[in-house]
């Protein structure tokens, strides 16, 4: 399977599954800083 090239330099947007909070960080947050929910990297497919 081939995906489009990704530029992983710089900050990555993560979005909380629970509250929709989006944070821009260089490292994956374990959980949402606002509600503690699981965070998704918006630069990658979920499926």
């Amino acid at each position: 399977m081939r995906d489009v090239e990704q530029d992983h330099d710089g900050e990555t947007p993560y979005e909380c599954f629970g509250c929709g909070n989006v944070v821009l960080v260089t490292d994956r947050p374990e959980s949402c800083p606002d509600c503690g929910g699981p965070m998704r990297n918006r630069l990658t497919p979920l499926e």
Partner: protein
Amino acid sequence: MTSETATERVEPPETPSGSSGTGSESAVETARRQLRHAAEHVDIDPDVVERLEHPTKVQEVTVPIERDDGTVDVFTGYRAQHDSVRGPYKGGLRFHPDVTRDECVGLGMWMTWKCAVMDLPFGGAKGGVAVDPKALSAAERERLTRRFAEEIRGIIGPTKDIPAPDMGTGPRTMAWLMDAYSMQEGETIPGVVTGKPPIVGGSEGREEAPGRSVAIVTREVLDCYDRNVTGTTVAMQGYGSVAANAARLLDDWGATVVAVSDVNGGIYDPDGLDTRAIPSHDEEPEAVTRRDVPETLTNAELLELDVDVLVPAAVGNVLTADNAADVSADLIVEGANGPTTSAAAEILADRDVPIVPDILANAGGVTVSYFEWLQDINRRSWSLERVNDELETEMVAAWNDVRAEHDARGVTWRDAAYIVALSRVAEAHEVRGLWP
């Protein structure tokens, strides 16, 4: 504007089959080449293969939105539906500047194989809008999502085509899409998309699922080669969601995770890292490379570590013709999509280094999407424990099917996975026949 078009036919290039193509080959060309390669191993009607080279439908739509300053911008969106012989189309929707019609067709074709190898009752699709989401405000992204939802409303639905988050989209995007669809249809229909926030029908266990499936498949392939997870050394390229969840699960099962990396580089401890102790960004920014460990290393060095299992789980095309000969791992499990180039796959096959392909290893994502869809259409919620139990069952079943083909035919794991997938899709086509 809405148009439905067919795909042009291309002749197969004389390049080897593998997980990912060369830079000059488009996603749809690579996908077609892999289809023909798999078809060589399977006794199926050539007419069915020819049908599968083409998407059933590609919807191209114009998506105008009002910007916050009152001006109007116009974007182009696509939904490529490849095949639905086994069930509704399934696949992500991305907001990304590089979205093209052909990319959606190629990625949609891969979703067909991914769903089929997992024996999920879905076909494959992919779509998106050619836009840089970072250039839009949250309100503009919402307007874009709602207008795009309306433009494709006629071809999506819980029994037709079920989108999911992809590059540049997320749970909130899916909630807007579900709301737009539901408002226009006059009833709340959570099963129209997956990857939603749990409060509107999302499933537990979504974020961990791809990493969990990577760990389960790694455990199974080790067993297949008469090796035990306990004491097995593992190097993970990446420490995002897939790598982190896979590393922690394998660590729990007794594996020794000796190396992980992030964009800045990796850390290495031959005695094993404490995968649960690597701090989150909130606790310590750029956590991986700042850890107090015996050694740090570059991402390139991590790929060449002498370990039992290498899991490239960050980005595509990291194992190439330039470094495949230097890979010292006994086994590779693809956590990312397309981490191994065609040339690298050939070199590693010559060296008898097994590669478990992405369409099986990271299929936990779409499998939990299936669970979310089941919960939505049945109006029931599953516990995290049930999600994980069902994922375990589905992954082991898929692994056993692929292993049976691998053992019976003496082919690579990648070929075995594609053979399982293509056989299921082709058999369904042959049984259903060609309408009218």
